[in-house]
């Protein structure tokens, strides 16, 4: 079995809330990520799904150390990123890159594509100025863009092309792990399929480890090997993508899966849907015990008492629910 390239142990990321005008008082914190333990294998595509506000983007930013962790450890190849020195961290950044959701906002409008792609190469001393051109051309071809477009600015490209540029930029340093935060959510269906194909092809060819964040379960099912479902800062279910989505165990995953509209009128009109009442609760003051219990159709008194841990259920699957056996 390939070694785990990325290890997350009880990772917590809280954002403090301050109130008061002159004297700031610490009055609480937003528990965006609250105890996530996860190992990612070399070459694996891990899908991370959940509703907005469940902490999936914060988890992504925590992995890249773009926000400081409150507790727990993130280690890349055995190196704890929280305690790493600046030079160690700089080296780690080569191996750890990110693709953002909005290709309209993540590219600097005043930098040409050439400048955007050559910057990481020069900063990290991958090549000399003389060799940059060759590298940039190669990157452009890698993501399916003609090298002659390199002198253009981001606004001259369509959304899908911009996302290709963002992917090229993330791959410039030949990273081992790429975190993609909703890379296709802003794109149309036909363009979305092109970018998904590109990502899975690059993963295969470069043996990339990809953490793919999305709220669209069908996209995640297609691209991922394993999927982790998050709710209010915690992972509630984890397992092989097709199994988790076709046969969900946790009540939240079940509701989430049943909420996706199926593009087939015959199926769509005759199926039972679990419609969850209300909105996800606030991560400032999460409910006691299982955070899902106020919306869960199967909640009992015991659910309010203690936070359920992720327990194995079936082959390489885990879920955090105390009533798994009763629910079948």
């Amino acid at each position, binding site marked *: 079995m390939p070694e785990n390239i990325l290890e997350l142990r009880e990772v917590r990321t809280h954002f403090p809330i301050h109130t008061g005008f002159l004297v700031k008082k610490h009055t609480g914190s937003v528990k965006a990520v609250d105890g996530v333990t996860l190992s990612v294998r070399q070459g694996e595509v891990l899908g991370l799904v959940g509703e907005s506000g469940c902490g999936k983007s914060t988890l992504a930013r925590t992995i890249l150390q773009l926000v400081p962790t409150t507790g727990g450890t993130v280690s890349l190849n055995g190196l704890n990123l929280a305690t790493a020195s600046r030079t160690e961290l700089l080296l780690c950044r080569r191996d750890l890159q990110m693709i953002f959701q909005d290709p309209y906002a993540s590219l600097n409008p005043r930098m040409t594509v050439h400048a955007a792609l050559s910057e990481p190469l020069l900063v990290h001393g991958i090549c000399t100025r003389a060799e940059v051109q060759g590298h940039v051309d190669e990157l452009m071809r890698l993501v399916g863009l003609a090298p002659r477009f390199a002198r253009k600015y981001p606004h001259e490209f369509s959304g899908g092309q911009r996302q290709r540029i963002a992917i090229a930029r993330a791959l410039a340093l030949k990273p081992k792990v790429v975190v993609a935060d909703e890379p296709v959510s802003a794109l149309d*269906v036909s363009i979305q*399929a092109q970018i998904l194909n590109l990502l899975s092809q690059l993963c295969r060819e470069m043996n990339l480890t990809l953490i793919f964040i999305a709220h669209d379960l069908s996209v995640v099912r297609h691209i991922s090997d394993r999927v982790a479902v998050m709710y209010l800062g915690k992972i509630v279910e984890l397992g092989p993508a097709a199994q988790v989505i076709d046969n969900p165990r946790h009540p939240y995953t079940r509701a989430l899966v049943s909420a*996706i509209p*199926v593009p087939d009128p015959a199926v769509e009109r005759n199926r039972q849907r679990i*419609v969850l009442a209300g909105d996800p609760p606030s991560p400032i003051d999460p409910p006691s015990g299982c955070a899902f219990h106020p919306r869960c159709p199967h909640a009992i008194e015991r659910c309010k008492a203690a936070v359920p841990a992720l327990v194995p259920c079936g082959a390489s699957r885990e879920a955090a629910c105390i009533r798994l056996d009763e629910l079948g």
Partner: protein
Amino acid sequence: MPLLTVTDLRTHFHTRNGVYRAVDGVSFSVERGETLGIVGESGSGKSVTCYSIMGLIPQPPGRIESGSAMFDGVDLLRCSPAVARSIRGKRVSMIFQDPMTSLNPYLRVSEQVIEPLLIHQDISRKDALARALEMMEAVGINDAARRIHFYPHEFSGGMRQRVMIAMALVTHPELLIADEPTTALDVTVQAQILDLIRRLQRELGMAVIFVTHDLGVVAGLCDNVQVMYGGRIMETADAATLFKAPRHPYTRALQRSIPALQPKGQDLFTIPGLPPDVSKAIPGCAFAPRCPFVADACLARRPELEEVSAGHAHSCIRARAGEIDVDAMGTKAAHA
């Protein structure tokens, strides 16, 4: 007689960079109580179609070049502003995609929900508030009596969308135009809102035009569906036919691109190329440059939307002539 009949609608935008033909000859009709889905990618003209009907196109730069939208005997595109005001917001309402920006942040929700009543009906503030409260409860806002006096920022995204639906339906319109009302919401909240629209439509017997890019949403909600591309209608049919036997290559391609319908582990079917540039005149079929079945005839002349069976029309000349096998499209590409 249909409730709304749109004929040959053309809405163009005249900008410094040229003329954008956002909607380029669109005709359709909506019966009372019917749900019509308009599906298309961004830039296909589906929203502009709705905005044109509602008279919300900023002119200039926009200009409605031709066409009519007959609503119960009144042409919404040509009637006087006074007549338009008496229909808009009362008999035809609209809900928008983004509940964060389409409510006024400075006004209490109560003010915004009663506004259409005060404008369109001879009703006292007190009675209007009672009606608004009733509507707020009907759209599923708990504790409505208290929350009606809140400001929009005190509601979550899903709740704001409910407020907007309450606002649109408080006058009991005959036609509701919903422009991607669930796109900005999470799937679990989307399921709630779709259920709500379905239930209210049954109770109030109104017609709905539902604009979306999500074929899944259309499948569950709509009676009839029309697919738009490059400002034109490519295919229109009842939902079951459109999903089971699409005849236009674009509809088929769109359907094939959805990850949910494709086997895992294989490459997804993709439509090569980019959406059309509507700032340039498209002489032939708008989809021709990306179509795997393109022939010379497709590029020469703009194909008309023609009926192939009752209620099913499309604009592909080659499919009509029986020259191509549209069903084989996805599978062939998957193996290629």
